[in-house]
């Protein structure tokens, strides 16, 4: 009885520490200095023996001779390589039972589906992915709104980088639909919005207050100025709803409001194409509804065959995780392979890559595959850092190591694209959130562990608890206390040194 009370107390304390950790450190304005043998900034030349200073979660300086503030914690690893965190431009992982049934669901938000405890986020952190855009709904007509998160924290709020980061529109085929019904449903969704808004205008003219009553029923404060005011329809759609300004904003149904925001260019669009034939529909939807400036195409299958149209429309793209498209020559039956990023590179289309798997074939692997197929190394690295950051309108925050950007830094055991390289430390907004030497799971995967054969996939029973890696590593503190570098090189780090001779 006594023991169990004690354990409960300990558990509560541990939980409290976890909950309070991330915001507390951010608020305290902690300074951290990272010294690495090589800093790959992804913004200009690499720096040998570089120093990165992070204050208040932001990088304040990067350079070879940058002075470290006297009161900063120091993470000094001359044997490691500093690299910006990878940016995942599009993912439909990390959620628990996301919506895929309602056809038109702009009112749904992935923040209600994201499962912070999902192994996906743990794997992402381990693989050095520090920014993830979660967008679900490839099997809808209009999916819900997405969210950009960092893979650390135990609540959605802690993880949030940006909420309502975009909305999924699907020109591809949802299961059970034909091309025609999918196209029709997509056109109808916009037609419905138009008819709905026109009816609102008419009702307001006629003095009907049903919309107002509905708004009050939904709990909106209709006396608030922003809800009272009307506003003319913005955006560059080929259609307009006249006199929308006479409708108080608050009276527009929450179910339709995200679609209106999308049309007005205030909500980025992730338009999913499953094949080249669906690109035509996608471009039509973009043209009709004036979405050209806010749309990113999410491509699957043979969509790359429409690369010319995509290039002409000047749209950025997020490529399928399968970088090499394989098809059969219809007459000879021989396999033809096409390296998809190469196609878009030739047409000067901006492209971002997606992870193939969350861990072993994460973004580094995809960039490496691009190099294997002849893409310039710089372009390959950009496609997993800078370009996705720009596509997500986070270009000023992530994607490179520059003063003013978020303090997201990876310390790698070698070149980012070498097969033996592993992520040793992850610093996220100035907090050390991952230390490989304390990662129990990676130890199990690498070295094996006596375990129950009947355990289900992914759920390896360990004594160390699920959130072990989320605890604050005391590395920084130790360094600070010792006042000197006393890191004996670890055994497996030695082994990792071999790397690629070519790199």
């Amino acid at each position: 009885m006594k023991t169990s009370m004690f354990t409960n107390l300990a558990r509560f304390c541990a939980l409290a520490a976890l909950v309070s950790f991330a915001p507390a450190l951010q608020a305290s304005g902690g300074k951290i200095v990272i010294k690495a043998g090589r800093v790959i900034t992804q913004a200009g030349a690499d720096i040998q023996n570089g120093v990165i200073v992070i204050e208040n979660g932001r990088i304040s300086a990067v350079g070879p001779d940058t002075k470290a503030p006297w009161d900063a914690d120091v993470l000094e690893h001359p044997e490691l390589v500093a690299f910006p965190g990878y940016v995942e431009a599009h993912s439909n992982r990390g959620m628990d039972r996301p919506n895929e049934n309602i056809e038109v669901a702009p009112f749904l938000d992935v923040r209600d589906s994201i499962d912070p405890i999902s192994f996906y986020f743990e794997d992402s952190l381990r693989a050095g992915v520090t920014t993830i855009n979660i967008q679900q709904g490839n099997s809808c007509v209009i999916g819900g709104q997405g969210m950009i998160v960092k893979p650390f924290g135990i609540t959605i709020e802690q993880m949030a980088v940006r909420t309502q980061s975009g909305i999924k529109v699907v020109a591809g085929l949802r299961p059970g639909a034909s091309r025609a019904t999918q196209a029709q449903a997509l056109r109808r969704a916009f037609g419905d919005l138009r008819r709905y808004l026109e009816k609102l205008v008419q009702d307001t003219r006629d003095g009907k207050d049903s919309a107002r009553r509905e708004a009050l029923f939904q709990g909106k404060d209709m006396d608030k100025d922003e809800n009272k005011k009307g506003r003319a329809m913005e955006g560059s759609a080929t259609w307009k709803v006249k006199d929308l300004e006479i409708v108080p904003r608050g009276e527009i149904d929450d179910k339709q409001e995200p679609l209106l925001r999308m049309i007005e260019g205030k909500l980025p669009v992730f338009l999913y194409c499953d094949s080249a034939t669906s690109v035509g529909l996608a471009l039509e939807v973009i043209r009709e509804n004036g979405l050209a400036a806010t749309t990113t195409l999410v491509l699957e299958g043979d969509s790359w065959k429409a690369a010319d149209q995509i290039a002409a429309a000047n749209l950025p793209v997020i490529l399928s995780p399968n970088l090499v498209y394989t098809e059969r020559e219809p007459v000879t039956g021989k396999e033809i392979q096409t390296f998809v990023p190469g196609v878009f590179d030739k047409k000067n289309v901006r492209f971002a890559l997606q992870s193939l798997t969350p861990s072993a074939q994460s973004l580094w692997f995809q960039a490496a595959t691009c190099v294997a197929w002849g893409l310039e190394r710089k372009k390959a690295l950009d496609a997993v850092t800078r370009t996705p950051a720009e596509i997500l309108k986070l270009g000023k925050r992530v994607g490179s190591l520059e003063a003013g950007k978020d303090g997201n830094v990876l310390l790698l055991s070698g070149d980012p694209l070498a097969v033996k390289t592993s992520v040793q430390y992850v610093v996220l907004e100035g907090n050390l959130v991952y230390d490989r030497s304390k990662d129990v799971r990676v130890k199990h995967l690498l070295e094996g562990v006596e375990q129950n054969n009947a355990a289900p996939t992914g759920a390896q029973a360990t004594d160390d608890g699920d959130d072990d890696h989320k605890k604050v590593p005391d590395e920084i503190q130790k360094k600070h206390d010792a006042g000197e570098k006393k890191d004996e090189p670890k055994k497996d780090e030695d082994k990792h040194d071999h790397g690629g001779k070519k790199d």
Partner: protein
Amino acid sequence: MNLSLIALLCCTAQTAQQPKTQGDAPRKNWVVSAERVYTAAGRSLEHGTVVVQGAKIGMVSSGSEDNGPETLACYAVTPGLVDASVRINSGALSVEQSREETPELRVTDTLSAYDIAWDAQAGSGVTCVLAAAPDLNVIGGLAAVLKTAGEPSIEKRTVKNDAVLRGAIGSQPSRGNHPAFGRPTDFYSRRPTTRMGVEWEWRKSFYEAAASRKDPARAFKGSTQVLAALDGKLTLDIQAWTTQDIRTAVFLKEELEKEPQLGGKPRLVIDAAAEAWKEPELLVRSHTSIVLPPFPEDGRTDDGAFMAWNTAALLVEQGVPIALSAHGDTSPAGRLSMQAGYAMQGGLDFDQALAAVTINPARMLGVEDRVGSLEVGKDADLVLWNGEPFQATSRVIGVIVDGALVLDPRTKQ
């Protein structure tokens, strides 16, 4: 009448001969010039040259050589990769399911040289493979070592027919079977239905085959092949994923050796031994070779087994001969060269990783005199790379099989 018949016979004999003479006709000589020549035979060369003469390797030397249009330049050249568990077959159609043991059946009788899976293998740098029937039977039959390119004829591509006697221990051979009682009898109401039953089938086969030495009346279909395996004339290649199945295989081998009435000298290769890392000392003790399955992202493999990523490194350290396998996958993430890369992530060094996809599997399959390393007189199976082999940043850009250029590095860049 008779004369014309003889003439006809001569004619057919001639046409049958024709392709063979074509195959033996002298081929173009290739000179492969590379910044790194990884021979898998003890030494690696910087700036080396491999000369292909006919279907064989004529010379391996340091220094570059320009032989005009017949020169193929690349960053690195290695021997053609060997996959000891390629798993290309005609699916269930390759398995005779009327019996649990079909040791006398040959997988080559069901293979098609026109299957495009071979092209994909060759294109990914795998030039020599062990093809076996799917492991639905306890003793599946005779597997063959084949080249993945060349004339579209299984006979001509065969390096070694009846290379190993293939079988399985574990849940796979009993999957789907159910006991005869309590239900209407059907095709699946047969034994074995458990792991124990599978093991019993193995032991029964060996004891019966041994008994047939003295009493020919006890011989059964395939007992000759089982005897050959017992005597070590035919390598035993047994699929066993989990520790318990690996143990069963090792103890079976030791029983065959120790039991006086058997008096065996079997050679054992355990395929897909995901959990070999758990008890490597058993494998050392019993001189067993291991073929590892593809590295799983989360450690979980078939049959509920868990494979740690340092398995290859650990086994090599203990002195267990290992080979890596991609189980037929040729995708960028799953190809055999990437499996070598993953093994390196787990701590294996480059030379050992190279051996594990070339000379080691060649030895296990008994074809090391022909393939598995770049040495003068061996088959001219070469892989040309655009970077350091086994890195994710490199790709196979050229392949030569038996001296013939299968993938041309000059056209595909």
